[in-house]
């Protein structure tokens, strides 16, 4: 079975480490905040200028001056810091954020990512994505492995205009967890009940399959 959005978030959350500063993109990456493992502390960075994003506000706490990069009203946790957009992107470009999680339309075996523009469709903009992928050393891309029509999104070379070149080293799809290294995808884990054959079939880029590919496990509640 392909992973649900919640399972994808849960799997990504296992990559969090105590003391990490983390930037979560819109969509599945945002859900990662719900699965931070017990006993570790992470600080969420929101690129509009907030380090230490807290929960959504109650009606009483609601404040129009307190939003995240998705423009949702949020709170700041104790120990948070608030700063300008220039300061925020200094952190991002300067490589100070420990982990960035963001969605993508396509990635390729050379670590290129396309996530912001489909020619012919309305283009709304890249927001902070180009700065995030250029600045982070440690990025996890979350995406579906193939389109609804079965076309692979893990490619030899991205077809869509890029968000960044050579910057992605880890991908979590609904079918598999992979690393990108030396011009190839390396299959590290597969979703429960998903065969290596299916992943091979749905990966258009060069794929290295180790002798043993463990299956991900999830607790019942997920």
């Amino acid at each position: 079975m392909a992973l649900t959005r919640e399972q994808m978030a849960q799997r990504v959350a296992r990559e969090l480490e105590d003391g990490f500063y983390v930037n979560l993109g819109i969509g599945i990456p945002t859900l990662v905040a719900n699965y931070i493992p017990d006993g570790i502390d992470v600080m969420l960075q929101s690129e509009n200028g907030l380090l230490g994003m807290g929960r959504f506000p109650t009606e009483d706490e609601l404040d129009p001056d307190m939003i995240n990069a998705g423009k949702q009203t949020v709170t700041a946790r104790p120990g948070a810091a608030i700063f300008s957009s220039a300061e925020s992107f200094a952190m991002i470009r300067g490589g100070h954020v420990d982990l960035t999680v963001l969605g993508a339309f396509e990635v390729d075996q050379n670590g290129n990512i396309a996530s912001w523009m489909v020619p012919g469709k309305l283009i709304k903009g890249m927001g902070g994505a180009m700065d995030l992928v250029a600045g982070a050393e440690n990025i996890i891309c979350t995406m579906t492995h193939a389109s609804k029509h079965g076309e692979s999104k893990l490619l030899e070379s991205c077809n869509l205009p890029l968000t960044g070149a050579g910057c992605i080293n880890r991908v979590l799809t609904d079918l598999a967890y992979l690393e990108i290294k030396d011009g190839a995808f390396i299959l590290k884990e597969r979703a429960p009940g998903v065969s290596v054959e299916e992943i091979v079939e749905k990966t258009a880029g060069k794929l290295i399959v180790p002798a043993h590919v463990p299956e991900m496990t999830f607790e019942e509640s997920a």
Partner: protein
Amino acid sequence: MAGFDKRVFSYEQAMEGIEDGMTIIAGGFGLCGIPENLIAEIKRRRVKDLTVVSNNCGVDGFGLGLLLEDRQIRKIFASYVGENALFEQQMLNDEIEVVLTPQGTLAEKMRAGGAGIPAFYTATGYGTPIGEGKEVREFNGRPHILEEAMTGDFAIVKGWKADRYGNVVYRHTAQNFNPMAATAGRITVVEVEEIVEPGELEPSQIHTPGIYVDRIIQGSFEKRIEKRTVRS
């Protein structure tokens, strides 16, 4: 003697001197921390052919979206647009020129513009459509593109509190692009919720020192929320 007293007492005075074809740098992120009354005054004055530098372009009927109604914006530099139907329509009809700019690069263009740095190299956008036609130079084995700084004829800024001398503090994430915008205007106008006496703001807590600010006005604000999310 006005000395360092930057106060003005009407929005008409606040935007005095704005003309057709000018470039305006605006603070704000989405609808958070936008100079909503200064934008409304620009609409009232019906100036046209404006170039606007702002992360976003408001929504239908509010914020910079107001300036779309009478087609006052000819060109906009922004990182994310199209939250408004009117914008989308004008973009598809080529009635507005959009220069999509990565968010961090946009912030740095304003910061550099205000700081007298004419251009800077960044890895952001290399290998993407944003890097096309731009000078490339390698530093530490990595290619970077040259991005030019930006300044405006006017900068319009939303602060929380200011003193008469134009020292400004921002509130929460309404800070966003405002401090950089404030440095990048030939004329910088800041509207705030409260003007206080010099000495009331803690000097070490000032976000924008008064040297950058030409005019200060106290206003009242709607502060519309774009995405209201609450927990029960």
